[in-house]
């Protein structure tokens, strides 16, 4: 991990943006490389902490997930569900053509 941020070259920045599905103008790559590199370098202070034998903690929530009957509790809300659709056709969302 010590060299992780050093590995953040322009190609890595473009790859992360691609994974995140955010279009990145080429002129923004250099600045993001600097900013993300600085943040990642700072984060690497966690290397000082001895975490051997420690179990990862995903959440401090103390609720145990409740089980409920597998039944419909709500429904028939087609118009509410589609009310904010940027584009629709009848009761369907529409997107640009996916399959040729």
């Amino acid at each position, binding site marked *: *991990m010590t060299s*992780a941020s050093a590995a*953040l070259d322009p190609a890595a*920045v473009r790859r*992360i*943006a691609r*994974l*995140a*599905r*955010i*279009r*990145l*103008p080429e002129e923004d790559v250099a600045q*993001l490389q600097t*900013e*993300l590199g*600085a*943040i*990642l370098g*700072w*984060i690497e*202070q*966690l290397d*000082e*902490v001895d*975490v051997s034998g*420690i*179990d*990862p*903690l*995903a*959440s*401090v*929530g*103390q*609720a145990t*997930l*409740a089980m*409920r009957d597998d039944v419909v509790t709500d429904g028939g*809300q087609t118009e*509410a*569900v589609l*009310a*904010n*659709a*940027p*584009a629709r056709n009848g009761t369907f*969302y529409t*997107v*640009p*053509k*996916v399959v040729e």
Partner: protein
Amino acid sequence: MTLELTIAGARDALRAKTLSARELTDAHLAAIEQLDPQLNAFITVTADAARAQADAADAAIGRGEGGPLTGIPIAIKDLFCTKGVRTTAASRILEPFIPPYESTVTSQLLRDGAVFLGKTNLDEFAMGSSTMTSAFGPTINPWQRTGDDTRLVPGGSSGGSAAAVAAGMALGSTGTDTGGSIRQPASFCGIVGMKPTYGRCSRFGVVAFASSLDQPGPFARTVEDTAILLGSMAGHDPKDSTSMDRPVPDFAAACRRGVRGLRIGVPREYRADGMPAEIERLWQQGLDWLRDAGAEIVDVSLPHTKYGLATYYIVAPAEASSNLARYDGVRFGLRVPANDLTDLYEGTRAAGFGAEVRRRILIGTYVLSAGYYDAYYLKAQKVRALILKDFTDAFGRVDALLTPTAPSAAFGLGENMDDPLKMYLNDVFTVPANIAGVPGISVPAGLDADGLPLGLQVISRHFDEETVFAVGQVLEDAAGFTAKPAIRAKVLS
């Protein structure tokens, strides 16, 4: 006079019929009309709906009915979904979004009779400590330095909610706190802000930032008023699997408990290098007040405090990158026209997200990506376990902790913007409570040399909000904080 009331005082006046809910709401709408063009605390004002709710409140009071908040005008952070009212999260990507449903917290406030004045400004998707990242422009802090008209930030992310209450545009408001987003703006604006235990208030219908950290909570001008609001906001919700099925105590009654016999911890690692001397002095003053009121002061150690921020800035972006994946231009929100689906996603998200949100999504994507997951995300989760253990150990010895809320008073608009890391340091004292999930409050305790408010923070055990309120009330009584931002004089005269 109407705008000087507390929630508790307004409730008494409404019940005694010396004041009508309509008068109270109209006075606050007038204050919004007069002050908000300068402060930009609101993204959406719902004046007509507020008047209708106020009239309904008057009718209910006339029938001898009414709940704990009937007729009380409050403001709602624009991160809570409100049925039929635009909810933006201060982002371009949600600008056209009108939720067809109500968040659980706001539905409980409405159930108890509250009047909603409108939706308040925030950092985009609650990512920030200043409201500078809002797509709707920053909120301006109602406070100014003595003899200096520099415009200051209200803190963030819930800066609009804090500024609205500080300026007298609402009696109370809601916020959400992921790393300090209620407590830090409360400190910057000279009001009370309370982050409950993770799981105390439902997150259903609250636009998600980092799900394991986010927690809704109240703002008001007194400790008791925040307790009254939390009483309505809290409670189990089957729609949020992380909300806890526990009884909601009488928080307002807990404000009168006092601190006699309580052990108050002073975490030695919070003595940060370069902390202004006046904040150090105020902290000492707070300890003296609590000792004078019968508490015992105990030095404690939270050895992993130093690693709280770095842990936070891995965990929060990781969760955010996952939560914000839903903003893809398909089902709701902004859509940028495109020729294929990938273009639609990439174009919509590039146009819809601001610089800070984009930065955090990219960090989150990186720390979760193949090859880096163990080194960053898994490691951060292990450090998180150690930070939680620090708190658990400390609360084996003490009942509450007292710390400063923020390392500075409110800063100027645009300061700290050039360097994201410098901005992140604002949250150094507040972030650990989110990582551990424990409750905390910020209480205004004094003014700095420039006449700006400074807050003290009280933290206690999971689900022991009652001790937080008890200690907070003693601080409030001892501090006797009565200063008001000069801008309020305009509407109070």
